């Protein structure tokens, strides 16, 4: 059956706004959906066929910008700006916002607004990227999984056009953040221009610049977004274990802990969203928390919120249970 998407995505944030997908949103959606995987295929083929083998310069640049943007998104966009889970000096705040803006995940305040809305409606109608809204009984569907992973960036109702200040008024009032937010396009371009420039200079050729653009630009985005970070919206709401009886489908997925800087302890996060620390017990790797500990020791951040407390107890299960494997039968 075809779901009534008007009901599935109640647009409480844009009561007065005519619903229309803006051309620029669709252009960005198309680029970020298709260009990075295509670049990955092209880059791999060029490498294997020996036509254009990436050198250490491309690989190091790619990893360096990848780590920068991952730290910016997870510790900045997410833990600092969306959840206010610690206090940062201006230098750290601006640095994280700038670094996250290289990731091709949208402008910082928009990102935080989407995320706050996700927590408000987690896996209920209104959630911008839940996979459970395409089935009348709110069961898993593959269509929903694709929507949660990447499809939502194509949905005018998910990316919204109006009412976002309601979710992030505090962020819009921060002049530094607003500047970075409104200059997002320049940061995004820098994420492509920088690796191209580095490789172009290192190899002294236009082909070198192209190789830098391919690996440090598009393939980097494929590795961060498509392959790892976007799994937070899809995988960690579909597969894995729930340690807490949160009213959503969030799960803990240990396998993704390192590559998401600890965000794959996503059930922990939904149980205690204002905590800056995602690890709730020994052995749960949370690289983001390690970086925060270093910054805290250097007095660059403070008021780091910890996970335990009465709020957590409220949602703690009496007995842990494993989430049943998602039902795949009724898709389409």
């Amino acid at each position, binding site marked *: 059956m075809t779901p009534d998407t008007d009901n599935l995505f109640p647009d409480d944030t*844009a*009561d*007065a*706004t*005519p619903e229309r997908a803006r051309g620029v949103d669709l252009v960005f959606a198309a680029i970020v959906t298709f260009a990075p995987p295509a670049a990955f295929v092209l880059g791999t083929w060029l490498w294997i066929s020996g036509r254009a083998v990436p050198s250490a310069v491309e690989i190091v640049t790619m990893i360096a910008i990848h780590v920068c943007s991952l730290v910016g998104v997870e510790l900045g966009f997410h833990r600092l700006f969306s959840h206010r889970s610690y206090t940062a000096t201006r230098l750290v705040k601006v640095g994280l916002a700038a670094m996250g803006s290289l990731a091709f995940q949208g*402008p910082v*305040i928009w990102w935080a607004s989407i995320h706050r809305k996700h927590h408000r409606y987690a896996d209920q109608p209104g959630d911008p990227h839940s996979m459970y809204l395409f089935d009348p009984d709110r069961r898993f569907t593959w269509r929903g999984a694709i929507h949660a992973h990447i499809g939502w960036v194509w949905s005018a109702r998910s990316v919204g*056009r*109006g*009412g*976002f*200040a*309601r979710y992030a*008024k505090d962020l*819009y*009032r*921060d*002049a530094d953040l*607003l*500047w970075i*937010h*409104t200059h997002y396009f320049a940061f995004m371009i820098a994420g492509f221009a920088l690796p191209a420039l580095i490789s172009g200079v290192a190899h002294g050729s236009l082909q070198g610049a192209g190789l830098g653009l391919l690996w440090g630009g598009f393939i980097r985005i494929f590795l961060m977004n498509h392959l790892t970070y976007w799994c937070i919206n899809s995988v960690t709401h579909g597969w894995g274990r729930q340690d807490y009886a949160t009213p959503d489908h969030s799960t803990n997925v240990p396998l993704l802990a390192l590559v998401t800087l600890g965000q794959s302890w996503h059930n922990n996060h939904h149980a205690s969203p204002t905590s800056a620390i995602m690890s709730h017990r020994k052995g749960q790797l949370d690289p983001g928390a390690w970086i925060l500990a270093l910054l805290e020791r250097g007095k660059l951040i403070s008021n780091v919120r910890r996970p335990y407390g009465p709020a957590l107890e409220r949602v703690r299960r009496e007995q842990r249970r494993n989430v049943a494997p998602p039902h795949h039968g009724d898709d389409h």
Partner: protein
Amino acid sequence: MSNTQPSKDALRDWLLTCVAAKVKIDRDKIRTDVSMDEYGLDSVSAVSISGELSELLNRDLPGTLLYEYSTIDELTDHLVRSGAATGQSPASEASA
């Protein structure tokens, strides 16, 4: 000096026209007591309107202004209070 200051009504009218043009909605459909953001005014346009207001009123205004005062009414009242507009409805109004 007051010749360079628009009246409160003129300022409200200017803002209404400006917002309507940015969000491409008929100005008759825009309410002055609803957050401008609700009509889909994006942040680049919001900062741009702050800049245009600075020009119009010949004073430095922060880019965050439209988020401090999110409705046209709130913003107009603030500008009148801060002395940027006259608060009256004189015959001579800014022709911006």
